[in-house]
């Protein structure tokens, strides 16, 4: 595996008058409440270890007070840890002197804020170019660059407006453009979409994913919304009371919650929207590759079913049933298995969101074949596995909420 871009090891943060003095108690494993009662210090983060790889969207998720906003501020040292190591490539961020830290912030990381953090006295264009102006880039150059990014986020024509004249969604687009304008490798997004209403939020998520496909930044994204985390995250870390509860890919979190806390979160998630076909499908067992009817019938016996997916060198061709084969076999079993014996059944893409394939899955007589874009048979999706994955939630929650 490639070397991680950012590495955090043994990070602790204690808030209070003399944080260092409390560290022995923290290491002794005393609880957050105990420490607060005894010393008046608040344990913000406890033994955080994580790595962020280049080019991924790493989501840190937690409820308010879980320390997620504190954690993200450690990446660019807006907050200094009480103890621990923060590494960016080979740079030990903790050891950077003030001047170099400024340079590091200017060139390596940019940040998007929950309440936008735009400068109300500067125009939209000046706001976008703020990072470059701090770097000392000439006005003409930076405004031209800012204009490009403003166009990219879809705000062309708003250059000379002031932030207060824009809607929340537009303001956050300005915030995003400002972050992208410095061309920093890492994007820190602190609850960037939380202050927006749901429709705008999902629009912004789409835009972020779209931009990420083009730009391949490393994004650290904070949210309290698991749906959001699952939607945009390549990997997710869940924080609770300053402790890391679970780290993993979205489907790991969804399908194997580490403890009750994560499970409680996960049960509210709309799985149909969070999971893809790939996560749920079974490996393909009904593959028929024979050239003739006879051989096909042999294969059909082995797979113990009454239908199979016919695959030849050009990939998936269609579905073939036992009844058809037996009928044809009576005439001539060395007959070639041609198109006339196949039934059409459209495959589904492995990357498709589960929700979008529910109707097809329920309507089809057979399990649906999962076909990648080159036509290869990747797996199959049965009504049963669909029901298992979606029904699980209804069972343990016992509510009447239908999958939207």
């Amino acid at each position, binding site marked *: 595996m490639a070397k991680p871009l950012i590495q955090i090891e043994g990070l602790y943060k204690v808030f209070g008058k003399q944080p260092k003095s409390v560290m022995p108690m923290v290491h002794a494993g005393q609880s957050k409440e105990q420490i607060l009662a005894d010393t008046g210090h608040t344990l913000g983060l406890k033994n955080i270890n994580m790595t962020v790889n280049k080019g991924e969207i790493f989501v840190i998720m937690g409820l308010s007070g879980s320390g997620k906003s504190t954690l993200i501020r450690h990446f660019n040292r807006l907050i200094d840890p009480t103890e621990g190591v923060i590494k960016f490539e080979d740079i030990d961020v903790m050891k950077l002197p003030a001047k170099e830290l400024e340079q590091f912030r200017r060139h390596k990381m940019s940040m998007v804020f929950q309440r936008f953090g735009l400068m*109300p006295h500067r125009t939209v264009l000046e706001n976008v170019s703020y990072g470059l102006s701090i770097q000392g880039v000439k006005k003409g150059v930076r405004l031209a660059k800012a204009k490009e990014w403003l166009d990219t986020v879809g705000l062309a024509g708003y250059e000379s407006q002031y932030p207060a*004249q824009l809607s929340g969604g537009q303001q956050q687009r300005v915030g995003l453009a400002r972050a992208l304008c410095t061309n920093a490798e890492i994007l820190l997004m602190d609850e960037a979409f939380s202050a927006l209403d749901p429709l705008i939020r999902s629009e912004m998520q789409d835009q972020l994913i779209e931009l990420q496909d083009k730009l391949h930044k490393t994004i650290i994204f904070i949210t309290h919304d698991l749906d959001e985390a699952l939607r945009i995250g390549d990997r997710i870390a869940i924080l609770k009371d300053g402790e890391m509860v679970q780290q993993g890919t979205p489907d790991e979190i969804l399908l194997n919650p580490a403890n009750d806390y994560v499970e409680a979160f996960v049960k509210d998630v709309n799985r149909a929207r969070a999971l893809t076909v790939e996560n749920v499908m079974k490996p393909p067992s009904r593959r028929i590759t024979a050239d003739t009817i006879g051989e096909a019938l042999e294969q059909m016996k082995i797979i113990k079913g009454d239908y199979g997916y016919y695959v030849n060198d050009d990939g998936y061709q269609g579905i073939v049933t036992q009844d058809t084969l037996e009928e044809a076999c009576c005439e001539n079993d060395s007959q070639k298995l041609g198109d006339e014996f196949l039934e059409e059944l459209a495959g589904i893409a492995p990357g498709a969101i589960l929700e979008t394939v529910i109707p097809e899955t329920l309507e089809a007589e057979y399990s649906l074949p999962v076909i990648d874009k080159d036509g290869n048979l990747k797996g199959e999706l049965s009504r049963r596995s669909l029901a298992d994955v979606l029904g699980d939630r209804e069972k343990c929650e016992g509510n009447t909420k239908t999958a939207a």
Partner: protein
Amino acid sequence: MAESSWLTKFPQMDRADLTGIRKSLDSAYRDFSREYGESIEAFFDPLLIFLVWFEKLLLATPWWLVIIVVTAIVYIACRSWKLCLGVVISFLAIGYFGMWENTMRTMSIITVCTLMAIALGIPIGIIMARSDKAQSVITPMLDVMQTMPAFVYLIPVVMLLGIGKIPGVIAVIIYAIPPVIRLTNLGIRLVDKEVLEAATAYGANSTQRLLGVQLPLAMPTIMAGINQTIMMALSMVVIASMIGVKGLGQPVLKSITNQYFTLGLFNGLAIVALAIIFDRVSQAYAKRSQRHMEGMQNG
């Protein structure tokens, strides 16, 4: 002191001791002013030269030119024809009632005092905003400056520098500077934390944060402080005239001692007119410089 009397009578210090303290303090200060008075006066010489020059300039300029220049400044600052008309009318009235020269003197000293107060007050306010320790030291000093009767600190200033323009300016500044310091401090402290954090996150150093974020965002509050400072400076004009500052204060002082009601009223009204002009102009300017705040409620 009899044993029983401390219950009914406050056990005060011996009269002789008290006199001793007074005498030694007084003489120490007198010695100090004899020793250093001249060098301190020399220190303030450039200010005095500027003051005299500015006053002479205002007095030597033809009255119509003064009115044109002031009206032009007012128009540039607030783009309001109404206000400009008000300025022209009040200046014409002041001149017609024979108070032109005194008004020019007062205007010159107020302008210099305000500029000095801003030049000193904003940096002090910035220091206060940056350090809680500085704030805890400076705040009580400001409290003293604002509540101590002006006459009390006039005494040492006069002892040190004699009577004249400089002690007057110092007295006015002491009295008028607290609002601009306080409101600079407050304005900077009230700047949205997230905006400041954003500046830090993009690698701004402390100067870039101060000039690019804190001061511009604190500007409405600072302008309110400047406005208050101007008003307080104007209200000190009469007291300052007691130590020889010429201007609209002197006729007022004369009318108090001689019971000239009309003279006092006219000069008082002239001070009021100046105050209203300064106030409206500084407020209109502050408002105009905050145009980006329009539509804030749509946010």
